[in-house]
């Protein structure tokens, strides 16, 4: 098993309970592991919540994290994947002064080249949205930085696995738990 530091995406299917986020993040805290990004949302199954957490750890570490996460009463199932095993994206928003949009041709080029789009234009500022890989949103941030970014924000990773998660089978096995 690889003991090299690797970026892993941990996907968690869970109940939607107050406090579960705290319980899950405590598992990382206890092991002094930093969370790179964290997203929560609904999943494909009604009433089932999904966490996507990105960490940079070794494979034995990520395995143990997933075991500890899965052990939590309110967690249905947890998986871990390498970048190659998932399709993932992040979204970034960039807020820039409106006058640059018209005065600096370069900005328009950057937006075009990076396949970003303009979400809104107000008299004082405009907002660019870019969805893609980390290095792509980073590149655009570097390009826009000289113009004085008013605000920059990036979402946590959202990701779907290439292999099936088999959640419907797991949901079926729930029924056994409820005998």
């Amino acid at each position, binding site marked *: 098993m690889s003991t090299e530091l690797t970026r892993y995406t941990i996907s968690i299917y869970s*109940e939607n*309970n107050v406090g579960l986020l705290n*319980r899950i993040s405590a598992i990382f805290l206890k092991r002094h592991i930093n969370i790179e990004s964290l997203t929560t949302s609904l999943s494909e199954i009604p009433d089932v919540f999904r966490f996507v957490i990105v960490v940079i750890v070794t494979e034995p570490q990520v395995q*143990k994290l997933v075991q500890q996460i*899965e052990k939590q*009463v309110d967690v249905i199932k947890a998986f871990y994947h390498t970048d190659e095993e998932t399709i993932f994206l992040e979204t970034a928003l960039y807020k820039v002064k409106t006058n640059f949009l018209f005065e600096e041709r370069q900005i328009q080029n950057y937006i075009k080249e990076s396949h970003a789009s303009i979400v809104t234009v107000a008299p004082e500022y405009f907002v660019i949205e870019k969805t893609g890989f980390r290095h792509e949103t980073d590149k655009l941030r570097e390009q826009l930085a000289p113009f004085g970014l008013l605000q920059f924000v990036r979402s946590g990773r959202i990701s779907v696995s290439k292999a099936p998660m088999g959640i419907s089978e797991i949901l079926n096995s729930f029924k*056994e*738990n*409820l*005998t």
Partner: protein
Amino acid sequence: MSEKLHISGAEAVIRCLLAEGVDLIYGYPGGAIMPVYDELYKFQDQLNHVLTRHEQGATHAAQGYARTSGKVGVAVATSGPGATNLITGIADAQIDSTPLVCITGQVAAHLLGSDAFQETDIIGISTPVTKWNYQITRAEEIPEIMAKAFYIARSGRPGPVLIDITKDAQFATFDYSYKKCTGVRSYRAVPKLDQAQVEAAAAAINGAKKPLIVWGQGVILGEAEAAFKAFVEKTQIPAVWTILGLSALETDHPLNKGMVGMHGNYAPNLLTQECDVLIAIGMRFDDRVTGRLDAYAKQAKVVHLEIDPAEINKNVHADYPVLANCKESLEALTPLIETKKLDTWMARFDELYAKEYEAVIEKDLKPSKEGLTMGEVMVEINKASKSDAVIVTDVGQHQMVACRYASFVRSKSNVTSGGLGTMGFALPAAIGAKMGAPDRHVVAVIGDGGYQMTIQELGTIFQTGVGVKIVVLNNNFLGMVRQWQQLFFDKRYASTEMTNPDFVTIAKGYHIPAKKVTDREDLAGAVEEMLATEGPYFLEVVVEKEDNVFPMIPTGASLTEIRLN
């Protein structure tokens, strides 16, 4: 149950406890839990509430009760400081897999987050040390959540659950009905036994020439003692125990070869490093058991019978994991195992025992020096109780000595704080242990340091009259720390010497019969008198000040580096 009642949340809490078969709880009142206490008053003929002298005592007492009775222990406290005082006991229960339901009062829901008087985020604080926790803000939630709390606490690998109830939810009235919880959809309490895993494990065990069984508390928690004994006897494989596994197999059993770990026996530790197949049953490879992990049993294939999937490969790689309640896996495994003749292997245990006896045990149990040893006190307790007492220990030298030398004929007889090593555990835990096993002798063996951490529970003993026998082994030191200072810090005894009060006078202040022994000739008589006395009894034994516990595996050393002196 089709009970339909319109009652308050507070009354519902009591009715839920009764519905779960609870007749005894430990706790301490205060503002935010007063509605529940008011109902307790009304139900006092059905539900006995023991007022401990500190909330930590309530959790430890509930733990002691759970450990000897096999039932869920219940502790109740108010919000804020009451709730935070529970935490040490909850953390102890979490790491030692003890089923507890802790109920705390909370400020009214509309005050949450306002820094109200005695508001504390007990859900946040208790999250890392509970199996599950939940804050109730509406009375209607109480029956379902209480049912879930008991189910989660006792099922699978047991553990503590904390339920925090806002004061307004205790006052509000609603239509109450109770349904026991039989499952939680996201939680699989016990993994389903996989016959293929059993067969693979059986093949590995059958191929072994020098097999070794290491068992832990899983055998006791899984009520697998009979299945375990049948397995051991069929296989004829030597079996050794972790501190929490102690008493699952009687001490005198010819295949019981003693304790593993830092102060465990010589043969079990050294032969862990020689066995070819290590059969771990309901244990979790704590570092106090394994010593240096990358040198632990490297030559052996590991079979691991375990209920908690998160324990597989956590510390030690399992070549043959078997996931299930160990009662079930043992019953599946035993018929597949061939009986072994392991005479040469067995002889190694005897050989190494002889070495340990000569270097350590004889001096501990039959000392020739003047000062009393902790070991000889244990011998007298064994004799006077016919090895059938529940022994409750605190943390330190006396704990290691007690676990090494106490002898047992019955399971659920050893109550100690293993994983957390909580000083102050024994006195309150003994109260619960006695209430959980009222027909048995319960002897708490405690150091002079740990005794003073929860000494106020003498008040609980006096008030309830619970027949706990307290033995304080007084070396006037925080002995275990002093031992480390002697061995690893050139005898710089920083803050480990204790100037102690007159313990006998203190016990007498609580009207507990008490005696102090300083001479060997008085020891046996005093222990006999203690056990013959009805009700509680306090016995102080002044022991040698600077005795050390051996064998010892220094922290970070491999088991092979075990020292006899």
